[in-house]
């Protein structure tokens, strides 16, 4: 177990398997909240926050409760409940301790429950079977690290995409291409660029 494992986990989940462009998770906020760079940044921070905590909690839940009891088939129901209550908890916590952070993240937090990026990363962490590859506790580290990397990848793509969209707003496009269609084509070109990063690890 070395630092290289964690480094590989971050790079691979951030760039090579980018969560939005190559795994198609969290496309709704990617198209919905990316009109301005400021809101894209807020959404990415909220996603990062919840994603790391959720993968930590669900990993423990899966291996120490569901697997012990032999009821892993209800994992989807358990995970979505955990994520929903976690979002509520994080919202209350932030509201109590940091008014400023709440002002910038508050409106994005309720949207996160139904953000498929969170549930998707949690399910991927379980499907990747880190516990058998690295041992139970090191597996937890790798799962949380790759969740953090995925959130970084989400932030990277959100901010780059919102910057492009701000430029596109003032551009003389044909009427039928304005808005979402041209954004999707831009996303497609970005996905092509990210495909080129395959194989760097």
């Amino acid at each position, binding site marked *: 177990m070395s630092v290289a494992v964690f480094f590989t986990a971050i790079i691979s989940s951030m760039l090579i398997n980018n969560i939005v462009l190559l795994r198609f998770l969290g496309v709704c906020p990617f198209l919905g909240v990316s009109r301005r760079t400021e809101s894209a940044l807020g959404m990415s921070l909220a996603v990062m926050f919840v994603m790391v905590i959720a993968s930590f909690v669900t990993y423990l839940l899966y291996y120490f409760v569901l697997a012990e009891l032999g009821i892993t088939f209800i994992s989807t129901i358990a995970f979505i409940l955990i994520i929903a209550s976690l979002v509520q908890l994080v919202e209350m916590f932030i509201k109590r301790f940091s008014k400023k952070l709440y002002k910038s993240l508050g409106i994005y937090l309720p949207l996160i429950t*139904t953000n498929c990026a969170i549930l998707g990363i949690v399910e991927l962490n379980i499907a990747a079977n880190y516990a058998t590859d690295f041992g139970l506790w090191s597996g937890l580290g790798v799962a949380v690290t790759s969740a953090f990397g995925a959130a970084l990848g989400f932030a990277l793509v959100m901010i780059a995409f919102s910057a492009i969209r701000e430029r596109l707003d003032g551009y003389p496009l044909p009427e039928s291409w304005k808005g979402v269609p041209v954004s999707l084509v831009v996303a497609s070109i970005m996905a092509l660029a990210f495909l080129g990063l395959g194989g760097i690890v």
Partner: protein
Amino acid sequence: MSAAIKQKKQEMSRLANLTKGFVKENPIFVSLLGMCPALAVTSTLETSIGMGLLVVFVLTLSNIVVSLVKNFIPAEIKIPSYIVIIATFVTIVRLLTEAFAPALFESLGIFIPLIVVNCLILGRAEAFASKNNVLDSTIDGFGMALGFMAALMLIGLTREVFGSGGIGYGIYLPLPIEGVIFANEFYIFNMGVLAGPAGGFMVIGVWLAIFNHFRLKKEAKKEAERLAMIEEKKRLAAERKKQKALESAGA
């Protein structure tokens, strides 16, 4: 007599309720709901059909159950309860797919559990099933899910034909026969990139632009008709005024 008319009207509105998901309120091309599966599992026609069938099953059943229990759920825990109902049906289809269509299960991967967070299903539960009776909710859920499936199939067909040059069948769905239609007839179009991740965004973007084009044209035509009607009314009014003035002058 009036009862018969009323019944006919109700039937008409039910038909409209069933068909609105295809064009007027299409989940993908109009409301942009459920974009994640629309991008991820549409690289072939068959996986699109498989995903569509799973969504038909989950959305119809969750709409039925939500509309059955709508009066027992307190308003504060409405959304979590709906999510649990949906997650239950998703778990059922997940286990059924794993048992009866293992190839489909393998290729859809995590997008089967992710049906839970598909905005379309929660959206229908919240917007329709929690306010209407069981029969209407069933029709609504079934129609909307069929519209979603139709959109997925359009995307899947485009990507498979232009991406791989043919349409395979029996590979992912458990059909008794398998093979490929038009194996190489579309080879001149062979654009492998469309079958990959970038192709999903590209194909949906292009289809959206095409649909937008027709929608805008229709709207422009309607607007022109409306303006022409106003013009016509003005002309008639002016004529009548003239007539009246002439009459009064004559008198």
